């Protein structure tokens, strides 16, 4: 009886297959493993990059070599051999596809399996998609339509060619290559990513979306996303990711930079579903991501929403630098860990401008033998008059072997600031389960209901298309993991 035996239910859940774990049989152009200046020059050359970008990479590489892997996170990270990874893997295509028909059929099948059929997306949902496979941006849809409004949405390498001034101006302006170990690594070897520019006064009419997939073995993915929202503009950006099931661990070290100008608003949503490893903790993606947005302009707003269900190890702190007066930062997160997954995730809110506001809502759910940590910083600088922050981080524990931790930091250097933090940790109330059981709802469904209710505050912030997917993911990860 499932209801009677929580362990059995848990086993069921943990043996749930990772449904995105297929490998696409596609010819891939991989450069040799290892990292040195030649490799970086090689990547740069392969992408036909200008001199200034190569210099940027080399500077980042030189700096990276002086760094050591950080150890402060509440994670057990096995030794990573950075010389055993290939830093560039691209699906082999003869030339850039002009239309959908020209995209490699295998590749299109992959994206169909992922549920992001480029065609359908284009026709039905009206979401512009930029799909990045391994290291290279495969296709960007709806580009022309967006171009009419002056919105630039293209792969990073195209942006370097077509809009070098914009890229040069903003690249590294929010996340410098000296920021941290993984940011330096990414800056040295990043292969592609997405570039978005919303011109003054334009409200982007559709959601922009990127799908990331690591396909080839022994490769790392290092993409870079740069979003610039000019004065009075608005954009909602979605990001999703999957990877095949493999025994060995793969590295994903991305950078997302966002610049928000006066009165502009950016909404960035992520559903992160990298392969989490099998139920014994073997394999899975190491997800070490630096995400930061700069609310440069007055009255600007940046909102991060993330649903983290995948990855063997997650190390990720989407942050807001609230430099403009009256700027607003938001962070909504649901992080689910199961089996042997580890997550150390949270945010940083740096209040610099006057009357800045930030909200942090973080919901952690840990099951199996996983470790789930919230780590967040709220810093109010001396000039940030009347800054306001509210932080709430709750943890839900679904098994007796997992861990849930909270490490909030508050640094208040201004006497007009009002900062609140509250956190709770508990397990699912047995009364609630009993109540559901009593009304004929099996334990498994009851847990799903309760967890969904628990995460609802964050889910509600997701765009509709994503909310559906995220809800399903949550169900897969957690159905019945408590008795």
């Amino acid at each position, binding site marked *: 009886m499932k209801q009677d035996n929580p362990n059995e239910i848990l086993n069921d859940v943990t043996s749930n297959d990772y449904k995105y774990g297929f490998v696409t049989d596609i010819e891939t152009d991989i450069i040799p493993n290892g990292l040195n200046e030649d490799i970086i020059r090689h990547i740069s050359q392969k992408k036909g990059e200008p001199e200034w970008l190569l210099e940027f990479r080399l500077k980042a590489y030189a700096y990276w070599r002086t760094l050591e892997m950080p150890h402060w996170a509440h994670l057990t990270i096995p030794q990573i051999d950075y010389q055993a990874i290939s830093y560039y893997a691209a699906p082999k295509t003869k030339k850039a596809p002009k239309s959908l028909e020209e995209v490699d059929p295998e590749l299109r099948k992959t994206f169909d399996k992922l549920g992001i059929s480029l065609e359908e997306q284009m026709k039905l949902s009206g979401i512009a998609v930029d799909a990045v496979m391994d290291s290279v941006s495969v296709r960007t849809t709806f580009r022309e339509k967006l171009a009419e409004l002056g919105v630039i949405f293209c792969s990073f390498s195209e942006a370097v060619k077509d809009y070098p001034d914009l890229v040069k101006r903003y690249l590294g302006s929010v996340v410098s290559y000296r920021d941290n170990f993984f940011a330096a690594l990414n800056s040295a070897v990043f292969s592609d990513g997405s570039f978005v520019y919303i011109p003054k006064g334009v409200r982007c009419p559709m959601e922009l979306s990127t799908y990331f997939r690591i396909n080839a073995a022994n490769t790392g993915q290092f993409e870079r996303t740069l979003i610039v929202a000019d004065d009075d503009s608005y954009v909602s950006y979605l990001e999703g990711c999957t990877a095949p099931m493999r025994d060995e661990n793969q590295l994903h070290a991305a950078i997302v930079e966002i610049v928000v100008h006066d009165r502009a608003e950016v909404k960035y949503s992520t559903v992160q579903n990298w392969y989490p490893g099998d139920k014994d903790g073997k394999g899975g993606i190491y997800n070490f991501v630096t995400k930061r947005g700069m609310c440069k302009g007055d009255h600007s707003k940046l909102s991060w929403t993330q649903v983290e269900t995948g990855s063997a190890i997650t190390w990720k702190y989407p942050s807001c630098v609230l430099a403009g007066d009256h700027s607003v930062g938001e962070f909504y997160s649901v992080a689910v860990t199961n089996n042997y997954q580890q997550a150390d995730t949270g945010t940083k809110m740096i209040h610099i401008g006057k009357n800045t506001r930030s909200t942090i809502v973080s919901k952690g759910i840990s099951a199996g033998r996983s470790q789930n940590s919230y780590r967040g910083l709220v810093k109010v600088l001396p000039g940030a008059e009347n800054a306001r922050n509210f932080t709430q981080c709750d943890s839900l524990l679904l098994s007796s072997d997992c861990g849930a931790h909270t490490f909030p*930091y508050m640094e208040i250097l201004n006497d007009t600031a009002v900062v609140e933090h509250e956190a709770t940790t*508990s397990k699912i109330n047995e009364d609630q389960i009993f109540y559901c059981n009593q009304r004929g709802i099996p334990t498994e469904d009851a847990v799903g209901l309760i967890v969904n209710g628990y995460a609802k505050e964050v889910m509600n912030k997701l765009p509709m298309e994503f909310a559906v997917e995220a809800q399903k993911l949550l169900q897969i990860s957690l159905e019945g993991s408590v008795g």
Partner: protein
Amino acid sequence: MSAVQQYIDLYRSQKSLIEAHSSEVMNGLRGEAVALLESRGLPSLKDEEHRRTDVESIYAPDYGLNLGRIEIEVNPYEVFRCDVPNLSTLLYFIVNDSFYQSAQPAAAKLPDGVLVGSLREMSAKYPQLVSRYYGQVADMKRDGTVALNTAFAQDGFFLYVPDGVVVEKPIQLVNILQGSNVDFMVNRRLLIVVGKGAQAKLLVCDHSDDATVKFLSSQVCEIFVDDDAVFDYYDMEESSENTSKVASVFVRQGARSNVLVNGIVLHNGVTRSNYYTTFVGEQAELLLCGMAIADKEQSVDTYTYIDHAVSHCHSNELFKYVLNDSARGSFAGRILVRHGAQKTEAYQSNKNLCASPLAKMYTKPQLEIYADDVKCSHGATVGQLDQNALFYMRSRGIPEAEARMLLMFAFTNDVIEQVRLDALKDRLRQLVEKRFRGELAKCSGCRACR
């Protein structure tokens, strides 16, 4: 030369002098302590747990140490200014780091079997008893300052309450820092053992007699509370702006024991307090609270670590800070619930008032939980006085300064309310009010107040 090296050198050259003026039990741990100090050094600003207080620079100056135990002429009653009216206590003094023998209450007032006195003397008299506890919970590996204290401490205070004995009268220990025109460092050691089912209350007050001399006061306090025992520990600091204090309190709690630790900082220079508690028996209860009122350039840094190693224990933390002028406050609290420590209840709350533009507050409430059937929460706030409340009072004719004071007083009163001695509560309220009015505590009689 690094700050730590001068102490290692001093120890090496003065080893025989240090040992001659102490006891065998205390000398027994010095070798290990110095080795640890040499290999690990003092905590630096790079240490995650010491980012807000530069411990190295506190220890860097060339302090004088009274290793030869030269008697300092002082009448403790003259400098003593924390008399608690209406509270009759058993009063003891430590002048710098020497237990003051000539001012002891009559031993007849103590119940049978209770031992109170100089740690050096007691450990010479009862070496077996003291060595069972001395250095057993003060983990030298955790912190270089504990190792340094262990290496240099020659005397201190010892309290032993045998099984089943209840000491009705609160015991009061007054630490007096008395300078002789040189910068001065003291290493004090407190050892408290409360037996099964026993009960006691200890009130420790810190004073500096000379505000012009730079003091470094290092204190390590070990508290063993056995099964079913009840123990209250109150620690109040009212020293000078030139005083740095680095204090660590280690508590080990047996089953069903009940401990209250209350640390109050009213006036200080730089204070770093560490509170470590380990539950070794089930159903134990801890109430850990503290408050700080700091202004000028004062700095108060508190670190708490509660280790829920067994199930069914209950801990509750409450810390409140009021910061004025350029004061710096820091609070870092960690609650660790170990695997299997089910039915744990752990709550933590840190609330702070920043009352001036230059005041800084850093807070890090942390939960680390490896068991699922637990109730844990933490909360932290930083804010100002409620403008509406201020307006309300002013509209009723209360001057602004008075209204602010009333509100600040009400804010800290939560911590005073936790005190389990009514007379002490009243006295503390009075002291806090005076502190907010900008006066040092005054009482009739002693030299400092006249």
